[in-house]
């Protein structure tokens, strides 16, 4: 069984993201490990796609390739027909800054910056005036319900609150694509539901969301699920 009707070659329309024959190998000592054997699929503008699979199935590797964070061993990752790995690493950085927001597994907040400063981080390289940066960051913090925690440091927040900060940081620059790696992985069910609702709202407002998860419950609001197993993907 290989990739099925997700093959972009079957579609005439132009997709927001196209993955063509992507593979990723790692060297573990003398052994070559195939984290992703071969994957082909597409994602359209405005979709909320879940990439689901067990731990070690290659789903996080796939997400990092989609985000321009991890050079694949083979294949192409096209964003609006642009092969992102044809770009230099600096051009990919610019691309992430402008088009892609990433919510990392385990939040990856900068520990010595306050909540507000962490959210402003993507704006620090945009040349936007301090006042505008402040407004944008405070607006987005209000959106995730953390206005009163703006001056706290990350280690003074709960896991759910840290996840919200990570989401606020990913969307502050209003990127068209949002990548979320196990956003509910370390949260209790109530908090997980709140986060998923927030992602759903963002999607309804037009943001394309690609979420990696191993939890089937997290996929109830997604428009499509791509299953990943043993480095291969299967359509839902």
């Amino acid at each position, binding site marked *: 069984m290989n990739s099925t009707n997700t093959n972009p070659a079957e579609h005439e329309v132009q997709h927001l993201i196209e993955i063509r024959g992507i593979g990723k190998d790692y060297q573990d000592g003398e052994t070559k490990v195939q984290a992703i054997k071969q994957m082909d699929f597409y994602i359209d503008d405005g979709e909320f796609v879940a990439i689901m699979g067990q731990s070690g199935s290659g789903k996080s590797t796939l997400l990092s390739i989609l985000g321009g964070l991890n050079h694949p061993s083979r294949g192409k990752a096209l964003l609006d027909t642009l092969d992102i790995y044809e770009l230099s*690493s600096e051009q990919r950085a610019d691309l992430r*800054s402008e088009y892609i927001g990433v919510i990392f597994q385990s939040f990856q907040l*900068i520990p010595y910056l306050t909540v507000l400063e962490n959210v402003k981080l993507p704006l620090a*390289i945009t040349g936007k005036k301090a006042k505008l940066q402040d407004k944008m960051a405070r607006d987005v913090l209000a959106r995730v319900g953390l206005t009163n925690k703006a001056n706290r440091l990350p280690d003074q927040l709960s896991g759910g609150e840290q996840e919200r900060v990570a989401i606020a940081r990913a969307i502050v620059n209003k990127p068209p694509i949002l990548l979320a790696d196990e956003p509910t992985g370390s949260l209790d069910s109530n908090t997980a539901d709140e986060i998923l609702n927030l992602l759903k709202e963002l999607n309804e407002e037009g943001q394309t969301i690609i979420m990696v998860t191993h939890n089937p419950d997290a996929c109830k609001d997604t428009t499509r699920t791509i299953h990943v197993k043993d480095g291969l993907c299967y359509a839902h």
Partner: protein
Amino acid sequence: MKLHNISFNNLNRRKGKMIFLVLGLFIGIATIVTLLSITESMSRDIEDRLDQFGANIVMVPKSENLSLSYGGVSMGGVNYKTVEFDEARIPEIRTIEYSKNLGLVAPKVLGATSVKGKDVLLMGVDFESELALKNWWQWEGTPPAQPDELLIGSQTAATFNLAVGDSLVLDEKEFTVTSILKPTGATEDGIIIGDLHAFQGVLGKEGKVSMVEIAAFCRDCPITELVLQIAGKFPDAKVTALRQAVMSKMQSIELFKSFSYGIAILVVFIGSLLVFVTMMGSVNERTREIGIFRAIGFRRGHVMQIILLEAMVVGLIGGILGYLGGNGIALVAMPLVMKNGSFAGFNYNLGGVAVLLSVALSLLASLYPAQKASNLDPSEALRAL
């Protein structure tokens, strides 16, 4: 929010880490500054001590038939027609341009007289300056303090069978032997040394001086320049630098300086290594953080700006504190390292070099790991611990 806010917030909110980094730099730079300051102070101290050790300039009257042999072996031919200076002119020596380089000025009058049927050379000196100049002299008894007291050379004492407390009549004046010089192996063994003015009277040379020995400090000036300036003041004098004395002093100083430079190079190397390892370790720990910056869309240049600004601030603080601390340690340690040694003072050039070195090493040590981390794919950097 600007990139420098990230740097300053990191330094400000992780004070423990910053103090640790500054401490690493402080130890490195302070070690360098301490040892360089101590070697510089020691070098100066040695120069000063060597300068005070004996005379290095001799001024004698210009005279064709002058055959004074003080400094030689034979006293035969000491003549009675010696040309002398007026004692009143001697203070003029201290009016030369480099007068601050002049140490002791020891005038003396020389002349022969007959004691118990034997010729003997008399040397009238100003005991205060003479004994300070000849600080290697040792004697029995107490050195003369009164004009009628004598210091007798060991050979002279043996020849005339003189002991401390004996009287000796010179030109019908009675003197008391208060001290006998222990053998020096030099001219002094065979002479009688007395008060300058008393011996001027004995020798019939009132107000006259036969020669002047001068100890000059030569750290800042060439000895030949001093000689020329003194000769300019005394056109009737033959002023000579004791080359051998000067050269041996210079050789000793050069030897010590070479040793100091050797130590300095070693210390700079070790100190630099310490600074380098501290900063490199600190940036290596931040690989994951660099991964986050890159994943958010920071360019390599942005990451570099953050890391290098921090390194510069840490380097600057560590350099300034290291320089001040190093000098403080040198100030306290100098008397312990060298008896009666004194701290040479703040060397601002060394300060500039120390701060620059600290900043440059911090930047250099941060550059490599920061470059390495920002060249990684962000996902790889994020996996790093």
